[in-house]
């Protein structure tokens, strides 16, 4: 029977799988960059010449990969706290705030790389949008922490 505990375990497994995927992707970043540079030539316009994109793409992917691992680590902390029944606590709000900033950071980096490959502007905008959603979620959590604290200190 499916229940919330199993759902939490699934979320933790998926987070771990995503972290492993991020580590594996990090190994192949130069190969991915080379493949993208030469195989995706029919893609949309770019501001800079495509032949100069290898190093910027490697840097972009390495930074984004590191940020993704940081976001996944925060997600892991969040899920660990939730499994301990500690949901509306300041630590979780901090995790959500960090994830939000990481998403926004990824968004900005991707948009900068959009100068070499315009499709990345779209990916960057998606990441910025996700960061914004996480920020609103953080605000909701922040308010919930305050309400819980008031409730706990109501005698």
């Amino acid at each position, binding site marked *: 029977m499916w229940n919330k505990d199993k759902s939490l375990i699934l979320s933790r497994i998926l987070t771990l799988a995503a972290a492993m995927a991020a580590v594996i992707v990090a190994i192949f970043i130069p190969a991915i960059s080379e493949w993208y540079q030469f195989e995706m030539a029919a893609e949309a316009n770019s501001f800079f010449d495509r032949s100069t994109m290898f190093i910027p793409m490697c840097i972009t992917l390495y930074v984004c990969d590191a940020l993704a691992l940081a976001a996944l680590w925060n997600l892991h902390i969040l899920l660990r706290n939730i499994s301990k029944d500690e949901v509306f606590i300041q630590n979780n709000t901090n995790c959500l705030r960090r994830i939000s900033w990481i998403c926004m950071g990824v968004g900005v980096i991707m948009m900068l790389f959009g100068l070499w490959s315009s499709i990345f502007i779209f990916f960057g905008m998606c990441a910025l949008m996700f960061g914004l959603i996480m920020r609103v979620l953080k605000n909701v959590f922040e308010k919930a922490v305050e309400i819980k*604290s*008031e409730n706990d*200190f*109501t*005698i």
Partner: protein
Amino acid sequence: MPIIVNLDVMMAKRKMSSQDLAEKVGITTANLSILKTGKAKAVRFSTLEKICDELDCQPGDILEYQRE
């Protein structure tokens, strides 16, 4: 917070211990301690009513407003 809780003063006047008052009011000693130390963010009317009943006093004897 500008609301001061003078519960300990009233308890001393009535010579009542925290343990006794907590038992009579029906709250834990930990919660009574939160109330006494001014850490509480709100007091239920029902709790206030029981405290006033047990200490034979008015809410104003326990709570005081001081302008900041």
